């Protein structure tokens, strides 16, 4: 499974105030809170952890098909500046984060095995088409014949007629950014 999360830093700065009373306590473990407060750039660390948690959550929910809001229970551990592990109820998710001046973007997978992941960041408006075009490149099937369906919890899946093309797919948008990450079925 794969999950992703993009944070538009400008929107995060104007719409959320991480220094607001209760903001850190509700979402982060004590260890994470310390890490945030000791970081050179606390604001960036807040959104790094958030995107790690959110990407891991999206990975988890595709497998277990239930929704909930429990960011504090997804515990982040940084291995390097870009890589981390998120633990939730005995499950481990491996994260890679990309930093740009204007966004933070994390991809989480539930396996350490080498997997082919297709991912890109663009505009939130064109994301569905961007995925279809990428799928056309990989499968040879015309993007016009590819359709999106959603699982009961709202996770996107892409089909050609009744045939599933993506074995896991995650879409994230925030502010000016839209991002997708997916893995395709083995036969392609």
């Amino acid at each position, binding site marked *: 499974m794969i999950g992703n999360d993009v*944070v538009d830093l400008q929107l995060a700065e104007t719409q959320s105030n991480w220094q*607001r009373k*209760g903001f850190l306590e509700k979402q982060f473990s004590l260890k994470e809170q310390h890490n945030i407060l000791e970081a050179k750039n606390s604001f960036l660390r807040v959104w790094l952890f958030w995107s790690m948690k959110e990407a891991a959550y999206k990975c988890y929910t595709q497998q277990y098909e239930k929704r*909930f*809001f*429990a*960011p504090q229970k997804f515990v982040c551990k940084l291995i390097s500046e870009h890589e981390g592990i998120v633990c939730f109820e005995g499950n481990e998710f491996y994260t890679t984060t990309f930093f740009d001046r204007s966004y933070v973007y994390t991809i989480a997978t539930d396996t350490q095995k080498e997997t082919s992941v297709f991912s890109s960041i663009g505009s939130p408006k064109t994301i569905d088409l961007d995925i279809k075009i990428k799928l056309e490149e990989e499968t040879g099937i015309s993007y016009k014949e590819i359709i999106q369906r959603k699982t009961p919890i709202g996770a996107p899946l892409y089909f050609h007629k009744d045939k599933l093309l993506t074995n896991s797919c995650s879409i994230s948008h925030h502010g000016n950014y839209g991002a997708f990450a997916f893995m395709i079925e083995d036969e392609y």
Partner: protein
Amino acid sequence: MTKEEIIIKLSTIVKPYIQNEEGFKNISEDTDFMNDLEINSANLVDIVLDVEDEFNIIIDNDSMDKMLTIKSVVEIIKEKQSSE
């Protein structure tokens, strides 16, 4: 406070975060924050904190787990207010 009064207060709280006007116009007990109002999950915690301030309650982690719909928030508020 009646359910209707709570929903009116909740509408004011969620308004700054909504991205789907149509969903907001039709706000009801069945409204889902993310699916119907397209509220970004990054703002859910702001809503949790706003609800705590507005209704003078504390929302613990177990209650927060369920905060995905207007209905669940109404239930949490009613439960917390009656236990105080």
